[in-house]
């Protein structure tokens, strides 16, 4: 999705990670197992989890709109703006970049998009509750919920907040104050038992449930189907956010599925552990959401993707609860039922509890970066790294346009620093002969024990050198990762000035990476031109994950829509063409964003008619009434 801020929240403080390991070890002793008193509640009685909002524990409260923007990305206190001098800055104190001035952004922004800071396209200032359609409540169901003492609301703000993810068209509509079909009711189960009850009642009263985790979907998965006439209930899992137990012998943790990424990592860290699962959205996205969409984390090379991390899943379906009977690390007992759940996108039930692998918090972390003369050479290097299986926790290759973008986000520096930068630039472009319009940068993140990291680092840099790569320092590497987590905030900034953008991703075999990147970028540019976009769009990509047999590629696409009559339609057409181009170039429908409703039309050709039939029959069996009626995927 369009940037999901990597959680470098002030509290998780990743920049200071290298020091804290010893302290954590002690904490680990202290907190052997929290399981005892936390894990015991059974489906019968009231939930212990159903407690007053614990602001200290949760980064995101029940009333999300108190802390988060209702019509944009992230925290209300953090946003980009151009100050009076035209210098860009990120407000608030949450992020490492907060408060620093970025003098290069304005020129880059105006130059890249042909935008002008004089031409603004502001959002409506606040949600007007009167434009929210009145709720279509099912009285008996609501009554029964109240009886079960499960909190719920039909406040317009909450309903609107639960009606969307973060697709461009969703945010664009909110900024224009346009509200479509929204859930009629939002309910906050506090534990597994609550969910069981909710699903029972829903079946009994034939209402529609839409599970809601972190709300960071970028596949229109949270959009309410227009054709749904029943009462729609958004099941917000955010209150199911406890770590129920930690098993230090097997290195697993049993966690409620509503927990969001940054809370999970923070809480585990208190015990000296981590999952290492860091999707770009981890500040806001939830464990259940990761399971439901087959999420992928930045550091999957060390920790694995969500399907590698999961040991056990509990899911409440209209047919009852589905789970395995043991925690064997691998089971040969028919097709893995976890794989019906992973990627089911809320169509089969609610994931309530997950047992995850955990790892000791890494002792050592180091950033790095490499400059390549061209994207082609960069890709060859990544391919070799994959071949030798020596990939660091994260390795990403940005194309030239993203390199320039990253450059535009450099903070204001002292005379000396800019002099030093000038020297570096001189060395690379003049002495080494790199063409500034062709070079590209790989960013690296190493994690693990120090010796291992240093050896690995050496190996990676040796490979890079074979492909003409020059080590370009830790700072550049770290800045590269900053770009990832602030980009969604930057999208909001662009939208203030007639610039809209989106990202999308795919996975593709190694031999087609370059062709796919070139074709998709060019397709975007030509489609924009053909459709009357005056200024050439930003069409850029990076390789964000590497595998034995291929890579994950991420595209950004943004353009200036001033003067265009229907920018959203145009945008959707271009995105559609880009996806067609991806598929024609041998790329997949999605690497980790999922299908939702946005990419549903390509499901059949992706998994074949027979495959689709298999999925349909599972849905039929589990949910004949279509209680989980978000109509994603199938």
């Amino acid at each position, binding site marked *: 999705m369009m940037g999901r801020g990597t959680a470098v929240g002030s509290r998780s403080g990743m920049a200071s990670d290298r020091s804290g390991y010893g302290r954590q070890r002690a904490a680990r002793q202290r907190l052997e197992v929290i399981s005892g008193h936390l894990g015991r509640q059974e489906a019968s009685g009231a939930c212990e989890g159903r407690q007053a909002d614990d602001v200290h524990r949760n980064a995101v409260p029940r009333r999300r709109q108190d802390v988060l923007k209702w019509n944009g990305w992230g925290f209300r206190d953090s946003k980009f703006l151009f100050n009076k001098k035209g210098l860009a800055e990120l407000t608030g104190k949450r992020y490492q970049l907060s408060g620093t001035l970025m003098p290069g952004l304005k020129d880059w922004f105006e130059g890249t998009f042909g935008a002008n800071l004089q031409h603004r396209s502001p959002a409506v200032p606040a949600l007007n509750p009167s434009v929210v359609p009145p709720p279509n409540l099912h009285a008996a169901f609501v009554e029964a919920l109240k009886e079960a003492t499960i909190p719920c609301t039909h406040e317009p703000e909450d309903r609107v907040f639960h009606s969307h993810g973060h697709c461009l068209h969703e945010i664009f509509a909110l900024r224009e104050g346009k509200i479509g079909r929204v859930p009629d009711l939002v309910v906050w189960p506090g534990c597994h038992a609550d969910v069981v009850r909710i699903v029972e009642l829903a079946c009994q009263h034939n209402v529609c449930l839409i599970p809601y985790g972190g709300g960071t979907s970028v596949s229109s998965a949270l959009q309410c189907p227009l054709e749904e006439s029943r009462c729609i209930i958004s099941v917000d899992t955010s209150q199911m956010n406890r770590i129920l137990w930690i098993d230090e012998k097997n290195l697993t943790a049993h966690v409620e599925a509503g927990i969001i990424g940054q809370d999970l990592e923070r809480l585990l860290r208190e015990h000296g552990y981590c999952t290492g699962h860091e999707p770009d959205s981890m500040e806001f996205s939830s464990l259940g959401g990761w399971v439901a969409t087959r999420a992928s984390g930045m550091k999957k090379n060390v920790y694995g993707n969500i399907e590698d991390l999961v040991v056990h899943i509990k899911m409440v379906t209209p047919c009852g609860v589905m789970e395995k009977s043991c925690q064997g690390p691998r089971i040969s007992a028919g097709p893995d039922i976890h794989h019906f759940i992973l990627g089911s996108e809320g169509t089969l039930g609610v994931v309530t509890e997950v047992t995850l692998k955990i790892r000791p918090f890494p002792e050592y972390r180091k950033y790095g970066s490499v400059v390549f003369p*061209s994207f082609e050479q960069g890709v060859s290097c990544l391919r070799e790294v994959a071949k030798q299986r020596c990939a660091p926790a994260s390795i990403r290759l940005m194309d030239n346009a993203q390199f320039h973008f990253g450059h535009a986000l450099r903070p204001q520096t002292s005379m000396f620093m800019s002099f030093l930068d000038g020297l570096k630039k001189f060395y690379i472009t003049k002495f080494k002969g790199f063409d500034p319009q*062709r070079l590209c940068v790989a960013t690296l993140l190493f994690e693990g024990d120090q010796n291992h990291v240093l050896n690995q680092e050496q190996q990676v840099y040796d490979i890079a050198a074979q492909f003409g790569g020059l080590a370009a320092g830790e700072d550049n590497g770290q800045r590269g990762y900053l770009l990832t987590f602030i980009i969604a905030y930057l999208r909001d900034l662009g939208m203030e000035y007639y610039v809209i953008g989106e990202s999308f991703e795919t996975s593709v075999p190694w*031999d*087609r990476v370059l*062709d*796919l990147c*070139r*074709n998709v970028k*060019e*397709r975007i540019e030509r489609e924009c031109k053909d459709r009357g976009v005056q200024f050439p769009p930003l069409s850029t990509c990076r390789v964000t994950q590497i595998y034995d047999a291929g890579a994950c590629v991420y595209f950004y696409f943004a353009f200036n829509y001033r003067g265009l009559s229907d920018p959203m339609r145009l945008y959707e057409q271009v995105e559609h063409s880009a996806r067609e181009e991806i*598929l*024609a*170039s*041998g790329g997949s429908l999605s690497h980790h964003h999922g299908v939702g409703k946005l990419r549903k039309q390509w499901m059949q*050709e992706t998994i074949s008619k027979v495959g689709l039939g298999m999925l349909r029959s599972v849905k039929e069996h589990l949910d004949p009434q279509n209680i989980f009626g978000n109509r994603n995927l199938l």
Partner: protein
Amino acid sequence: MLSRREDFRDILEERRTSSDLSHALKSFTRVSSRASPPCSVSTLNKTVLESQHLHYIMQEVSKDTGEPLEAIREEAAGILEEMSQNLQLGYIRFLGFILSKVFKRLFRKINVNEEGLQRLQQAMQESPVVLMPNHRSYVDFLVLSYLLFTYDLSIPVIAAGIPLMGMQLIGEILRRSGAFFIRRSIGTDKLYWAVLSEYVKTILRKDFAPVEFYVEGLRSRTLKSLPPKLGMMHMVLEPFFKGEVYDISLVPISISYDRVVEESLLAYEILGVPKPKETTMGLLKARKVMDEDYGNMHVCFGHPLSVRDLAKGKVNRKQYNLIPRDLPMKPSESIHAFANTTAHLVLRLQQDNMVLSPWSLMATILMQNLGGINLKLLTKQTVWLKWLVLDFGALVDWPVQVADSEVMSSGLSLHHSVVRCEGDQVLLAEQKPQRGAAPEEAVFRRAVAVLMCASYRNQALHVLASPAMLSVALSLAAASSRADIYNLYAFLREMFYNEFIFIPDRTGQDFEEACSLLQKCGTVQIINQNIMVTDKGLSVTSFLTAAVEPFIDAYQVIFRYICSRSVQEFTEKQFISGIRTFTLNLILTGEVKSYDVLSSETQKNALASLVRLNALTKKKREEQTYFSPNKAAIGRTADILGKKNSKIMCRLGRNSSCCVTEAPVMPVEQDSPAPITFIS
């Protein structure tokens, strides 16, 4: 005069006024904004030899033959060395200098549509470009490089036949001017195919240079388009299908000659006298052709075709997703159909931009008056034909502000090798046979003269082909029902598919177009579901029918021959010598008037058509292809075609009495003043 406007500029004009040397030494900056910097010839060849595709094939070949991989690799390197071009700007300059001299001597003008060059320049900046000229003369070979050099565009690499390489010195000069050489009969030589296709594809993938090739495969001896060869076509399309390039532009280029330099050889070659081997000495001896006047040459660069656009909805590129792209793979049916249609489309577009000379119109009239024709009448009919082809959308190079009579006499004098005037009669220039020669010798000499004239008719034939098919269909049809006529049209189109180049799967569209062309000029009326020839339209339809009649007659003779009792199963060679004797006899007895039947091209086309129509079956035995006829089917085909003869005759009979109206009516011998009358 060009009714469909295409502005041409004579590039020789400047050459005649300024120094050829400074032209050759002018600064040349290759226009190409595409990202990657150009690579060297040696890098290119290395990439080819190291390619995965070639590697797979070499392994296969090594397994098949039992030879060690290393030996196969060396063989591949040898093939590449023989094939590879070695484009060097210095040689282009050298050649530019020579060609300036040669061209000025041979031609009055070389006219180029500059707008087309601008479009080409644009296309070159957007994607790899394939230049696809027609091939009528050896002169074609370097004229494009010369033009692109003159206009600062990337010099192409050119697919050439290997005999050219054999010419001492010249071969090497051509190689350094961008020619790469392809063996004539590659057949099933897997390794050769692999090296060649990898070579072509690498050039495109790397956007090393535009690729120029003749989709007709050969120089057309008949000056008519040849059915396309698909081998190279597949090679240049594949990088797009496999996503290795974003798009590829195909640029149809039409080169038209007033007079073709090798005209005297053409007739001999199609009569089966083998062409002289290309040698440097031969070239030097050919110097005397330099003393002749060859009139104007037109080079028209067509609109670049985006393969991506053409393939939209026709080719699913995902078909390559599940197999390594380098793995040797037979093209799927959809790919094959697409390549075939695209090749035909390019040929059609080449034809559309051919510039017809007044002479080729004269030749068309002459072909219907082989016994000679009065100059005045020839003039009238030629002018009439000019209006007709303009109506049909052709480009005609008819000088403005020059009296028609002057245009005629200039055309006649330019072509003194084909026609002569005796008083006010215009006759074919025929060499008298030596005294005491066999009667066959006379037929042969006559055939040479007729076929030479026919070649120039052929230059204009593509404009007339589809309406002519419709005219024949109209004359064959028992009733005027549109459906019947359409069926006949479709049948004829299939029959003459290779003769006149029709785009596959476009029968309906072509039929509509032909109908509307004839309707537009008042030749037919379409009322309800009936198509009827108007009274005044008869002269047009009978003219058109007569224009293609030699072909119909030729096919009839061929059918008759194949159906004759003695013929059972035959190879192409046997067929060609058999039909020759058979026809010769028929001509000697005066039973057959068509000389086109003696053309080996027509003979081969007829064979191909019969194979297409399943009236002939092709079998391969011991490296030989045998044809066995289904005589019943051929007989039926002949019957359909034959029904026409009587009818056409009777219509032709009526022809002389038709009167002149606003519709173009062919002037006839009565030569009455043309009163314009309107139908009330």
